[in-house]
């Protein structure tokens, strides 16, 4: 693409040459392209209609004309044929005739299997004021995502039928694209600092006061970029991977934290998943005025979100960078279809975010927050997002993004992460991460689907785990991925009586209070220090374990190794006859103390 940015009108005019190879067994007569910037053209687009007049807290009512954006395909021709191709907007998902987020092009010459197509386009993209990351903000901040005519993916669906996978732009949809090489030439005013996907290979000042940047990005599914005059640039390197950070000058003190998070993520993902295959990762830490463009991932390019004076004890800054970086592996290199199977991306990323944070920023106690004695780990927060869902049964996690009901983040990010965490604890770190490395190696640059993961898990589990653990894995996959079942095991009662022969008979009642039946471990500990480990291999609603022993039963635990992170109440997983009144006393004191403090503060004028 050859692009020219006019920062006064917030428009990019461009020419584009697209080369596409037909790897399908079909002859292709039409192509479909994303024109997602048209989602922000007016209030009639399916994206805005679905937003109830509010996009991420941004009120869209009375939006001035200049704050809307659009993309227009001024010309599209096949190479060597001087004839405009027929184009029409299509709306396969919701039949909204006003939606212009996907365009269908009739080809003059159908493309036979193995054949190739070269399209030449001329387009203009007008940025909206920042909405859903894309757009312009004050002080000539420009962020380009969903900004150019982009081919969909021609592929077979799960039933084996080939066609264009090119969905309209609806709420919650992110990326799905074909791998390719992006060769970009971007001309902007000289004062702009420009960063983006891939590598910036050259930067030439022109006689007309502009600068032309050349970017190359290989084997990526998209290209995003930023232009802003007040960026500082920090460069670094980790094991041959260049790291380039664009940040506003007043965030200088945060640079080591951001770079550290990138390096930690690179190291963890290389060891546990696979080698980062690109030569560079670019990070953009937006100024506050560009904050709406932050918190996101693009191929080889991620955006953070921080502000001046961000407190050190709150590690959400690092957690965000880690999260967005981990997307490189799932959205970027595996390139799952985020629209149809968002769990394969966001859920996996949240799982690895939790693990990176716990590996480098504390333990299972304080990896996210450690301030004034209050400690929260990243995984505990993720778990809480699932456990705290108002309705945990609203949808299954494998649902298509636009059909998901209820709390999207709790379901897609957190529940998936808890399923993976449970898998890791059942399989053990060594087996689990070996499986992840195989999953990554076998599927990189291929768009894997649920079956690619689930079949691999089952295969590895059948080879490496005991029958009991294998059944745990099967239940986890079947109920976790394909049902809305909720897991809540409980030790309901423990009753001990003395038998005629003097031995102690303990009756332990164990229940599954919901409907997620997964084999579980149990442990009974006695006063003399001895333990009995057993299992409930085929759980039903309720079971009683009756144990005869010489020593008094002290504790009964279900899932004593804390494998089942999907259990929504961990407090009822154990029972001890030696409860400590001091915990109650501790919180009694705490409540008394803080109430006294509040009384003193609030009465200062009385």
């Amino acid at each position, binding site marked *: 693409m050859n692009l020219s940015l006019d920062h006064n009108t917030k428009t990019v005019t461009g020419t584009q040459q697209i080369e596409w190879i037909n790897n399908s067994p079909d002859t292709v007569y039409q192509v479909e392209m994303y024109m997602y910037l048209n989602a922000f053209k007016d209030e009639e687009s399916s994206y805005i209609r679905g937003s109830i007049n509010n996009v991420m807290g941004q009120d869209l009512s009375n939006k001035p004309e200049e704050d809307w954006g659009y993309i227009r395909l001024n010309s599209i021709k096949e190479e060597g044929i001087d004839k405009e191709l027929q184009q029409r907007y299509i709306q396969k998902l919701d039949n909204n005739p006003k939606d212009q987020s996907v365009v269908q092009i009739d080809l003059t010459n159908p493309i036979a299997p193995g054949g190739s197509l070269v399209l030449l386009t001329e387009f203009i993209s007008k940025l909206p004021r920042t909405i859903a990351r894309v757009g312009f*903000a*004050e002080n000539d901040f420009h962020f380009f995502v969903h900004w150019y005519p982009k081919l969909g993916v021609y592929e077979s669906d799960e039933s084996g039928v080939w066609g264009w996978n090119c969905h309209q732009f609806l709420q919650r949809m992110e990326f799905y694209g074909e791998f390719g090489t992006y060769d970009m030439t971007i001309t902007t005013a000289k004062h702009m600092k420009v960063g983006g996907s891939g590598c910036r290979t050259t930067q030439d000042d022109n006689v007309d006061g502009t600068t032309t940047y050349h970017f190359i990005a290989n084997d990526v599914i998209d290209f995003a970029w930023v232009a802003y005059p007040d960026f500082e640039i920090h460069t670094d390197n980790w094991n041959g991977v260049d790291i380039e950070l664009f940040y*506003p000058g*007043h965030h200088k003190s945060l640079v080591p934290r951001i770079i550290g998070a990138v390096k930690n993520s690179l190291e963890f993902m290389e060891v546990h998943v696979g080698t980062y295959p690109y030569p560079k990762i670019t990070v953009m830490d937006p*100024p*506050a*005025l560009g*904050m*709406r463009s932050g918190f996101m991932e693009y191929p080889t390019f991620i955006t953070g979100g921080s*502000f*001046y*004076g961000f407190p050190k004890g709150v590690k959400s800054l690092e957690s965000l960078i880690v999260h967005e970086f981990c997307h490189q592996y799932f959205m970027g290199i595996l390139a799952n279809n985020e629209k149809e199977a968002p769990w394969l991306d966001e859920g996996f990323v949240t799982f690895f975010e939790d693990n990176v944070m716990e590996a480098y920023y504390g333990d299972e*106690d304080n990896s996210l927050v450690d301030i*004034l*004695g*209050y400690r*929260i*780990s990243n995984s*505990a*927060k993720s*778990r*809480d997002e699932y*456990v705290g869902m108002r309705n945990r049964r609203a949808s299954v996690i494998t649902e298509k993004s636009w059909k998901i009901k209820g709390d999207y983040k709790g379901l897609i990010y957190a529940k998936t992460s808890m399923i993976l965490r449970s898998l890791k604890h059942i399989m053990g770190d060594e087996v689990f991460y070996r499986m992840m490395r195989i999953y990554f190696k076998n599927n990189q640059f291929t768009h894997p689907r649920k079956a690619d993961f689930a079949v691999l898990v089952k295969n590895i589990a059948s080879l490496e785990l005991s029958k009991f653990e294998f059944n745990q894995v099967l239940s986890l996959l079947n109920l976790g991925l394909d049902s809305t079942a909720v897991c809540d095991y409980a030790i309901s009662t*423990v009753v001990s009586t003395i038998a005629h022969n003097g031995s102690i008979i303990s009756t332990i009642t164990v229940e599954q209070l919901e409907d997620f039946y997964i084999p579980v471990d149990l442990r009974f500990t006695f006063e003399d220090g001895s333990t009995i480990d057993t299992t409930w291999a085929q759980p039903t609603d309720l079971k009683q374990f009756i144990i005869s022993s010489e020593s008094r039963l002290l*504790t009964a*635990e279900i899932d004593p190794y804390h494998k089942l992170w999907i259990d*929504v*109440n*961990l*407090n*009822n997983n*154990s*029972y*001890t*006859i030696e*409860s*400590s009144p*001091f*915990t*109650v*006393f*501790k*919180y*009694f*004191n*705490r*409540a*008394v*103390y803080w*109430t*006294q*403090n*509040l*009384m*003193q503060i*609030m*009465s*200062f*004028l*009385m």
Partner: protein
Amino acid sequence: MNSVDSLISSFREAKKLRKVIGLIYLIQLGLAMFVGIFAGRYISKLNHSLNQIELLFRYDYSVLEDLKSIFPSDYGAITTVALLMIVAYMLIATFIQSGLLYSIYHRRYNFNDFKQGVKCYYRRFIGVGIFFWILAIGWTLVIWIPYMSNLFHMVEYWVAEYMIVWLFAFLGILYFIGLSFLFAWSTQTRYIMIYQSHWSWSVFKRGYRQVIARVGDHSKTMLLYLLILIIGYCIYFLLERFIGISGVGLVLMFLIIQQAWVMAKIWHRTAVYISIRNLQKIIRTG
């Protein structure tokens, strides 16, 4: 006498009011114990869970969040009771202030004098309290409403983002200066009321003049008062951060630390009332 010396001598004088200070502490403790009972009952819902023991040794986010999600109404009850107890104490505080300031003003530290002050002034002091609370709410709105309502606009349009943070800090300081001024003004107003022995609207004006006439001394006193409070809270948080309330012995140790600090703050505020009285006395006699 400089402000530090004045505060030290006020602390000494406040010792003479130890019975009243003890009474205030007991009232606060008694009311707060209701909240404590609700919190204790809530935690006891962990029943025989091993997590109850876990919670004794460390702050565990998941244990508390699971408890909240299973017993949301019990959690809500704690905040409701806390709110009720705080409001109840604010009303009781009016009685306490009337007796306390009466004793301080007349330098009569007998418990009967405290009771005499309560009897004579509590009704009038309710009016004064409400007046200054309305002013405090107004001040809160004046300072924070423009900032909060423009926050999104500032974030999106201000190039110098650090200005937003510094403006917040500046407004925070200004806010506390305003509240400190109200505290001093309210105290001086009550002293004037005790001095006049009758109610009139002019007490507010005279109280205001008292503060303005020696605004520097009042500022120093209030600044010292705030500094001691801030240092005390910092020490407490550092202790809790680095020692932690983890284990039976530490629960008991922190119980003593917490209650000592609560008691110290009552003594400390009494000393500040004495310091403010001393400033008032000088201007009156002078």
